[in-house]
């Protein structure tokens, strides 16, 4: 695959499998989003055939994001290529997806509104960030995005796949102290599974001192080795594994900011 094509492919996985799934968190947190989806009992999916896919399962006032596409969702947006998916999400071109389930068009309109609402949390204003609660939530979403992003990059970027092939199998847990967000990623022969919450038997745990430091780390505003030395970020377990997976995480920045 040529470099440009690979870039578009990885990006589409990042958008569909790391960025969009955060809608689950946002619906749980944001009253407006909850109102928009009130009473929904359906599955809405976006996917590139043979490529990235994400589906949102709405039920009992909750939304669950799942990676991958299924054959019979309520509504399906089928986007022909990774390039088209990226354009659509970046709003840089007109993309007309194939829509299955157009009789649910009202829902689709609201769903599109939801994705717009994400912007508020993904690119927050200075003002919003001053609110402690918002700041914590934004950082949580960003952390989850980074962890899901590791899967997208780790499985589809050729350079990173080379690194990943040498990393031992097992879970890496990332945890913000004292009671901040926790997520983990499990590596199994080049394939990643991502989940929220702690890992059962982690190979390595990264503990970040507090949410402010997590925010700075995720915005590339800290020097990692310095923070390790100062014990503000701690690694317990297979440090070599964390070192390699940090490269995977850093690589996300090459595709999306």
């Amino acid at each position, binding site marked *: 695959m040529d470099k440009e094509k690979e870039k578009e492919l990885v990006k589409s996985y990042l958008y569909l499998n790391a960025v969009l799934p955060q809608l689950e968190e946002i619906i749980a947190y944001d009253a407006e989003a909850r109102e928009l989806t009130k009473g929904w009992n359906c599955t809405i999916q976006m996917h590139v055939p043979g490529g990235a896919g994400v589906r949102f399962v709405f039920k009992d006032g909750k939304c669950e994001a799942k990676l991958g596409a299924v054959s019979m969702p309520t509504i399906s947006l089928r986007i022909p290529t990774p390039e088209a998916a990226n354009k659509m999400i970046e709003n840089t071109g007109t993309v007309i997806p194939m829509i299955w389930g157009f009789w649910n068009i009202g829902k689709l309109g609201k769903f599109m509104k939801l994705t717009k609402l994400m912007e508020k949390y993904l690119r927050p204003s200075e003002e919003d960030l001053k609110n402690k609660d918002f700041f914590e939530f934004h950082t949580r979403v960003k952390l989850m995005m980074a962890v899901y992003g590791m899967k997208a990059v780790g499985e589809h970027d050729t350079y990173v796949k080379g690194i990943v092939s040498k990393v031992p199998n097992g879970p890496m847990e990332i945890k913000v102290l004292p009671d901040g967000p926790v997520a983990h990623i499990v590596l199994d022969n080049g394939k990643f599974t991502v989940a929220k919450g702690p890992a059962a038997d982690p190979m390595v745990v990264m503990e970040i001192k507090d949410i402010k430091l997590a925010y700075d780390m995720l915005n590339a505003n800290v020097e990692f*080795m310095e923070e*390790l030395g100062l014990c503000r970020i701690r690694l317990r*377990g297979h440090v070599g594994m964390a070192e390699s997976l940090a490269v995977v995480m850093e690589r996300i920045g090459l595709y999306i900011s």
Partner: protein
Amino acid sequence: METYKFDKSYEWFERACKVIPGGVIGHKHPAFTVPGSYPYFASRGEGSHYWDPDGNEFIDWMCGFGPMVLGYNNPVVDAAAQEQAKLGDGMSHPGPISIEYAEMMVKLTKGMDWCVYGKNGADITTWCMRLAREYTGRKKILIVRGAYHGAQAWSTPSYGGIIDEDRTHVHFFEWNNLDSFMELINTYKGQVAGVMMTPYHHCIYADQQMPAPGWWETIGKVCKQEDLILISDDVRAGFRLDMAGSHAYFGYEPDLVCYSKAIANTYPISAGLGTSKLKETAEHVLFTGTFFSSMVPMAASIATVKELKRLDGVNYMMKIGKALCDGLVSVGKSNGFEIIMSGPYDIPFMRFAREKNFMLKQLFSGEAAIRGVIFHPHHNWFTSCAHTEEDVKKSLEVADIAFKKVKDKYGSD
């Protein structure tokens, strides 16, 4: 037993971070031990001990990652170095001592006919690779997966600044796995210049592996059949298995031998030795560096070799290492842990049998460090001729406490 504090280390680290990326460069960065439980800097050393900026004293089982074999500040080695320093160093020609040095190394090392000198291990391993290519006119170099041959682009385990092309012609096979070796030999028939290997497999985050019966014999045979250059990277094991080279210990016949670390008891020097068939080629492959001909480290190296011979150093280091290794297994057992010690006694690697992720080992090592004993959680350790039975006794007492701490937190096996 009172535990140490590292306030000054941290203070210095913060200061360092302002002018040194990451505060400490490379493998001595605190992140690779247990930050918070180790000193970050060493101020002074003597024998097998050193002191940190807070004045804490440590028994050092890392020996500076290998170079210390006779003790820090060894009076015999330092006197020889100082004598040379008085005469001057860094002049516009190499000193006569460079000849004395090469003569000594050639005489010492089994099967070798000539010697060059550099600064670091990687200077030599990288040059040997080029030498093999020049001699054979071929490109490929075969190395063992997980082996370390230095931090040059072709061999570093790190990723920053590396491009694919740096390793296009470096191929990996598995230690003690003849099939994977032969697969490369057959795939790249007529293209392989050389094979670079350490005498035994000292990998990181895993048990060290000694050569399986017949391993070296077969490697040697295939290299001869295929006319490949066999490079023995003895940077880590050199002078700790056999003064004639680790190839003499395991009974193989390399074309090139790479030395550094232990050969000058912490003075900066490395050496490359080769057989006569490569001598002329060695003239064509530029090997130079401003400080390669420094005389003080050569004087130190000559004195180190004499001292190691006088003290029967290798046997002593093995003996003291055995006492430490056996002791740790036994103290571990009495605390309910199965402890695996792998590799030679004087370059041992310790692991809790039940774990793969090193959390127990990190806690163990950190608890030992705050009580004055430096083990490393992930890297192999080293012993020296300066380590005493008293050091072993004290280290095992501390290990006993450290094992108990591990038991308190994680439970015994």
